[in-house]
């Protein structure tokens, strides 16, 4: 029978191999799924994984979707490393889009002198709005001990409904034929694009810079170290004088700010106006990105692009194979599920125990199974 045996210390090789094994298992299940649906599995995989990478357009689209995923996941990695369970990044993302969108709507004849620099206050407002929404979670946790998992998630629904009210009410475009949407933001507020004609925008550069900053913060600063100690060994952190409350606030404000930044980038980037379709599930997918990337900024860079590939592959599978777009969600969920299972291999190794035939052997076996 198979038995798990604790490793003397966590295997660093397995820590890197585990996401790859998980990806392989997910793809295997994907092949079976395509087969069950009566589609050619190889063609399905090719459309999901290879097709988006074939041309510049596909790569640009890949970066458009990877940008918010990476930014949000970076913030979440700080949270999860310090054992703060913010799962409401989607709400903070919506707030970021609201904050950034509001500033973008203030652009007009009086602000022309600012030129494209107008984007900077837009992004700052987005960050602040995201921080505010995460700050509510931190406040309720800090002051009233309210569970941050549930509070942050509930606030996603509240943010979503608030957005719905704004685009149907006070922020609705008066000349928009009563569609639930704001005005289209002025060109001045729009994110500069990297390559003319493609949707890839400077947000990608922001994400790349953020990866470096987060790596330095987590692994080269005192504050980052204190946060991680607090997550791994709360007692040790208390003993060292690292404040748990401080860590809670820092983690939530950072992750809220990053999600808000992503929301503002999306609002003045690919979207160009606010509609009820601002929430796109990036905040939830970023949780998977953070885990698959091992809560490590470099890893998140890769996993962000991988998850973006799932999104675009899902869209292509819909248009080319007639498969539902929801397939993306299935693959994303499966990937996280298999990853968590594979992560067991970091701490344990699987041993094959010969089934004993002697009565003494079966007695020990029975004892062992009783223990299990």
């Amino acid at each position: 029978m198979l038995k798990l045996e604790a490793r003397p210390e966590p295997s660093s090789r397995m820590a890197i191999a585990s996401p790859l094994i998980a990806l392989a298992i997910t793809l295997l299940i994907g092949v079976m799924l395509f087969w069950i649906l009566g589609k050619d599995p190889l063609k399905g995989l090719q459309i999901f994984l290879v097709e988006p990478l074939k041309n510049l357009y596909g790569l640009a689209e890949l970066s458009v979707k990877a940008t918010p995923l990476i930014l949000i996941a970076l913030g979440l990695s700080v949270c999860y490393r310090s054992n703060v369970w913010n799962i409401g990044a989607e709400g903070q993302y919506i707030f970021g889009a609201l904050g950034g969108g509001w500033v973008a709507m203030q652009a007009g004849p009086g602000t022309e002198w600012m030129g494209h620099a107008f984007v900077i206050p837009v992004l700052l407002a987005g960050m602040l709005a995201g921080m505010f929404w995460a700050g509510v979670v931190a406040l309720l946790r800090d002051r009233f001990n309210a569970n941050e998992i549930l509070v942050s998630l509930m606030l996603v629904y509240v943010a979503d409904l608030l957005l719905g009210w704004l685009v149907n009410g006070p922020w609705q475009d008066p000349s928009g034929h009563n569609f639930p949407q704001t005005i289209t933001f002025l060109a001045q507020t729009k994110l500069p694009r990297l390559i003319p004609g493609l949707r890839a925008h400077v947000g990608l550069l922001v994400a790349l810079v953020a990866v470096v900053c987060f790596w330095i913060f987590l692994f080269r600063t005192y504050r980052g170290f204190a946060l991680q100690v607090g997550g791994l060994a709360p007692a040790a952190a208390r003993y060292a004088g690292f404040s748990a409350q401080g860590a809670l606030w820092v983690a939530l404000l950072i992750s809220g700010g990053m999600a808000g930044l992503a929301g503002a980038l999306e609002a003045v980037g690919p979207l160009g106006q606010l509609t009820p379709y601002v929430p796109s599930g990036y905040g939830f997918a970023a949780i998977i990105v953070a885990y698959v990337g091992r809560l490590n900024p470099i890893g998140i860079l890769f996993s962000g692009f991988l998850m973006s590939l799932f999104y675009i592959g899902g869209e292509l599978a819909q248009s080319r194979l007639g498969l539902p777009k929801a397939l993306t969600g299935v693959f994303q969920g499966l990937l996280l599920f298999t990853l968590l299972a594979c992560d067991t291999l970091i701490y344990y190794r699987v041993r094959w125990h010969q089934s004993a035939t002697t009565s003494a052997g079966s007695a020990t076996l029975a004892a062992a199974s009783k223990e299990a």
Partner: protein
Amino acid sequence: MEGLELLIAASLNAGTALAIAGIGLLINERAGIMNLGAEGMMLVAAVAGFATAVHTGNPWLAFVVGMLVGAALAACFGVLVIWLNTNQVATGLALSLFGGGFSAFIGIPYVQEKLGEQPQFHIPLLGDIPFLGPALFRQHPMVYIAMLLVAVLAWFLYRTRAGLVLRAVGESPESAHALGYPVRRIRLLAVVAGGAMCGLAGSYISVIYTPLWIEGMIAGKGWIALALTTFATWRPARVLLGAYLFGGVTMLQFYLQGRGVHVPSQFLSMLPYLSTVVVLVLISRNAAWIRANMPASLGKPFFPGS
């Protein structure tokens, strides 16, 4: 006040699903396992139950299928967290994310489907009492079954040996293990039972309460059910009370709109979510009280022999 009896009736109906899911999660948490996958299990069970009802026309069969689906998903979760010692929060979250995607995926053929005419329920005599009749005694049988389930669970937890063992496993798995109880198997059983209850709740929502299937239709009820266990300080009867309160808050928006209260509908729709936050704040404010009531090893993994 006219319409009040209908508000009460609708609140009981809306609270029923929350109560069923809530006591399922209560069983989990009493055994020391926190399953954040409730929302995902309810979604998959909702679509599975709805599909069963569409094909067979039998809501009771739909409930059974919903329970089986919930139990199967919970078993996957249980094996991961109990035997492979994965992080409970992350694994539950994975189940919720997977359930959201998977239910949307398999639910596509059923989005436009409708269920046949629902039979009206009416308890003879009691249902004819003015006010109380329409408020309390004209409900779907599941509403009363949920009340019964709560009573059975309370009896099980506090009046039976098995219930005592279950609570011991959640309070101090080490002691239970030392006494020779198979802690991990008991925990898995609790998780599977909790999943079945979540599945029942999910299929009740899609087959009776709504009754239709839309992507993401559980709309946070799984998460609210999780909050309910804290609200109830892990007592079955209080879960039921809390569920009806939340059912009432959910229904209040329609009641207020019906009475011509001019508040944008989005703000009224926020009420269940905001009140969940408020309730969590009020209940959790006293940290010592929560600690005194919470199963001591909630969320903590247990490996025998380490």
